[in-house]
């Protein structure tokens, strides 16, 4: 089978997985027996009963033949549209890009859910990419050193870092870092005391290292760092970078352990292989043996987990975004779940699922490029 055939097969499979995910989400969010759950976001109390019924019919929840709102809320026979019909009308709406409106008070009632999501996603993407970069930059060397110095000091050190990393609640680490960098490490400038780094928001201006008036930037992508680069505003870039440090480190630390552990074990596995003995017997430098012969083989499992980490970070930085008031989709999803904004939760879940499925496919395709043995 050719690579593109494999990719097409996987894409078809992907569509089915996403449909299944949408069914699950739909049933959970709208299939609950009481219709008030499903209607809560759309029908405000000031509406009159006929208006409410009209809205419900418009949403495809109530049958047009339903006599009155009272009959509908009491689930009189023939009033509530069957769930599968609801699903298909919902799917049609959703696929045409109509995800409904937001009801989250802090974010904006009545704004379109899709617009809200698109405006917030770049922040989450920026945070996730930064965290993934930090993870890879630290985990790869740590894992390699750990494997090559097995049971020696560097190994113990990186194992302990990894273990502590995945034993630490993200929310707690976030506060510890804030306590250190915002409350204890302070600088006094012109009589005002500032923490070393900003504690919240995507662009911090109230810290010792920040530049107070960074100016403005044009919105090209929505992600502050990228926009600052594209607008050629170094001061804004610096502030955005400083604001990114703490959340990104927090997020990275939680995934660092998993990747370090995988790199270590697959590297140790590779170093035990016979071809390493042959490479050594050829009189190659130890550096060449480790970085060329062992690492290339050990990278495969590491890539799988890196793809998954990036996907999870993109979808699930809820806690970090909440603690650092980072205006990403995760924070909005939390608010949505507190205020029962089902529209946003549906969109968020489906996009996250899409990202994960695409990341898995990307990892598998990347495999084929690195490992010549894999032919699909």
């Amino acid at each position: 089978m050719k690579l593109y055939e494999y990719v097409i097969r996987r894409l078809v499979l992907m569509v089915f997985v996403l449909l299944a995910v949408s069914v699950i989400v739909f049933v959970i969010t709208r299939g609950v027996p009481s219709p008030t759950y499903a209607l809560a976001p759309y029908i405000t109390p000031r509406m009159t009963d006929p208006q409410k019924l009209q809205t419900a019919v418009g949403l495809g929840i109530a049958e047009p033949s339903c006599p009155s709102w009272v009959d509908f809320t009491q689930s009189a026979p023939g009033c509530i549209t069957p769930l599968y019909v609801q699903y298909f009308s919902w799917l049609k709406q959703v696929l045409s890009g109509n995800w409904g409106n937001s009801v989250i008070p802090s974010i904006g009632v009545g704004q379109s859910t899709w617009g809200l999501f698109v405006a917030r996603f770049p922040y989450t993407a920026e945070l996730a990419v930064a965290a993934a970069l930090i993870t890879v930059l630290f985990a790869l060397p740590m894992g390699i050193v750990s494997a090559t110095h097995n049971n020696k000091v560097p190994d113990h050190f990186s194992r302990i870092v990894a273990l502590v990393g995945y034993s630490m609640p993200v929310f707690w680490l976030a506060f510890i870092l804030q306590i250190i960098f915002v409350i204890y490490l302070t600088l006094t400038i012109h009589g005002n005391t500032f923490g070393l780094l900003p504690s919240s928001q995507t662009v911090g201006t109230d810290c010792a290292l920040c530049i107070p008036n960074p100016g403005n930037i044009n919105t090209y992508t929505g992600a502050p760092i990228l926009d600052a680069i594209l607008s050629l505003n170094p001061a804004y870039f610096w502030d955005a970078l400083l604001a990114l440090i703490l959340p990104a480190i927090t997020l990275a630390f939680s995934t660092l352990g998993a990747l370090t552990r995988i790199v270590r074990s697959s590297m140790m596995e590779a170093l035990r292989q016979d071809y390493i003995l042959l490479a050594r017997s050829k009189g190659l430098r130890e550096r060449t043996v480790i970085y060329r012969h062992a690492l290339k083989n050990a990278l495969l499992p590491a890539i799988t987990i890196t793809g998954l980490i990036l996907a999870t970070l993109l979808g699930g930085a809820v806690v970090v975004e909440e603690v650092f008031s980072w205006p990403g989709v995760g924070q909005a999803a939390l608010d949505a779940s507190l205020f029962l904004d089902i529209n946003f939760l549906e969109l968020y879940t489906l996009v996250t699922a899409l990202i994960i499925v695409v990341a898995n496919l990307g990892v598998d395709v990347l495999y084929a490029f690195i490992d010549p043995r894999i032919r699909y």
Partner: protein
Amino acid sequence: MTQRVEEVPFEPRSVYRRRSGRISEIKYSLYLARKNPLVLSGSVLAIGSILIAALSGIIVDPRSWAFQYPPRYYCWNNPWINWHLQNIKPCPPGTPFYPLGADAFGRNLLNMIILGLPIDLQISFSIVISAFAIGVALGAVAAYAGGLIDEAVLRITDVFFAFPGLVLALVLVAVFGRNLTILTLAVLVVWWPLYVRLTRSQILAEKEKPYAEALKAMGAGRLRILFLHIIPNSIYPVIVQATLDIGGVILTFSSLMFLGFAPSPLTPELGKLVSDGISFVSQAPWLVIFPGLAIVLVALGFNLLGDGIRDILDPRLRR
């Protein structure tokens, strides 16, 4: 003339492994465990936390979460004494009777941590055990039956793998409301597919081994081979994963509680304790530090244990 001198194949795990063989194997594992500092410290932390959680109602007055104790004279910052001061400061750690300090209501932080521990462990154990049971059952059936059943199970796990960490939990809690059963289910739903995959791959590898073929040739029943031979031989990595996951589930569950999904403001739980402390983080950082540290220690205990067990059971490192 190319006959070879006979080579005796070395087969460490023989078909006819006697019971005494398995017992000596377990004894050897225990010997290795005693020598391994990871396992030792991990089991001290893990067993210690389980003991404290089990006895928490005896060690500490269970009411001390909800009610304030009468003020202690030793703690000069206590709001009950210093109510007239503008600058109310919670009792700092290190004061007598308040080894870890107290919160703004004068509640003893150490007592609260001890009271918050059981719920985390209880829920974590129930989630991991259920995920383990579902995973082993489904994984074993999928791997052993193969064909359509295998494919169906795999596709179902595919769907659930597409929900990362907290996402589905957010949706479930939003719709069904905040109660512990829903929270438990919310975490379980994203956790079980991993066990199915792991068990399935383990059993698939084990099924191909010569001893399983030999048993089949001897006429042993399929279920007998599966339950008495293949599952016991391939389950160790799944057990290791379960040990590691107890820590992971505690982290996830406490995150949910931290995010404000606790059923009631009086639910004694460690993540909740941290989130209660954050409004005082600049005056009383210990209210955030110590409850979090308790979570770290418990999770670290199970992770160390799992890591150590993995080292011990790894056949390559064994001899």
